[in-house]
């Protein structure tokens, strides 16, 4: 086989047409195309599927249109807590992280967990410490925070909480 395929999804946190402003719609489409381009470039260069999925997800993590990395939603306590996972179908090696707060690209931290090989899922402050030990790019928590996401949190808290929160996942 000499051909490859890349498929992506990118959630904005809005579930209804009409709620999404036109500029956000256009930005989301542009972000998806950029992610496909990044992953496709890796595959065109002979890279692995693993390289491609990491490259594509990193683009969407950096793009504020999506609920991951920069642009992630807020927790009840007003923090951006990030989760990610990656898995290699060849060996079924896998790595995952949850509730990290300072790693710019959580998917790359998940890959470091996988490549380290001792564990599959690290969480919280320990995962942040592992990230620093592995030399991944660190950012201040404010890097992830956007005003629109804060507004969504405020709206949900004003409405009483969890049920209405399903709009923004």
């Amino acid at each position, binding site marked *: *086989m000499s051909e*490859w395929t890349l498929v992506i999804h990118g*959630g904005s946190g809005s579930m209804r047409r009409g709620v999404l402003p036109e500029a956000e719609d256009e930005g989301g489409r542009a972000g998806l195309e950029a*992610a496909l381009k990044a992953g496709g470039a890796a*595959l065109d260069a002979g890279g692995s599927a693993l390289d491609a999925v990491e490259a594509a*997800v990193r683009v969407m993590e950096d793009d504020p249109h999506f609920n991951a990395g920069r642009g992630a939603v807020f927790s009840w306590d007003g923090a951006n807590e990030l989760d990610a*996972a990656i898995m290699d179908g060849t060996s079924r090696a896998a790595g995952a992280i949850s509730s990290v707060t300072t790693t710019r690209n959580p998917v790359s931290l998940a890959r470091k967990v996988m490549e380290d090989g001792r564990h599959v899922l690290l969480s919280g402050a320990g995962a942040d410490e592992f990230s620093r030990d592995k030399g991944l790019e660190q950012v201040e928590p404010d890097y992830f925070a956007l005003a629109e996401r804060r507004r969504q949190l405020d709206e949900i808290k004003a409405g009483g909480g969890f049920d209405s929160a399903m709009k923004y996942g």
Partner: protein
Amino acid sequence: TVGAVAVDAQGHVAAATSTGGLTAKRWGRIGDSPLIGAGTYADDRACATSCTGSGEIFIRAVAAHEIAALVRFGKLGPVDAAGSVIAEIGAMGGKGGVITVGPDGTGGWAFNTPGMYRGILRSGEAPRVAIYD
């Protein structure tokens, strides 16, 4: 939630998922995305899958691994398997979607919510993206 699945020129598959979770999540809530088998799974003998949606339902359905099992043992194609699992998730009260691809390049998506942003690119073809379409 964002995610990607791919099959490379050697026929190997991989999956990745990344998310901020659910707005106003409390008590250390974790969804399906970082749980291997629930929100993310890859197996060259079946397919690679990344999920987005009602995390608690995807966890209970072990969605990504269930799709792989339907491909490996049930002999379904990845997209048909994905459709079956999304239908089951809907019956459990869940909403969301998955992307999936097999080692032979067969792939696509299944979802039961109108707003899943998605895209696909195959070698030698133009990219296709869709929102609500």
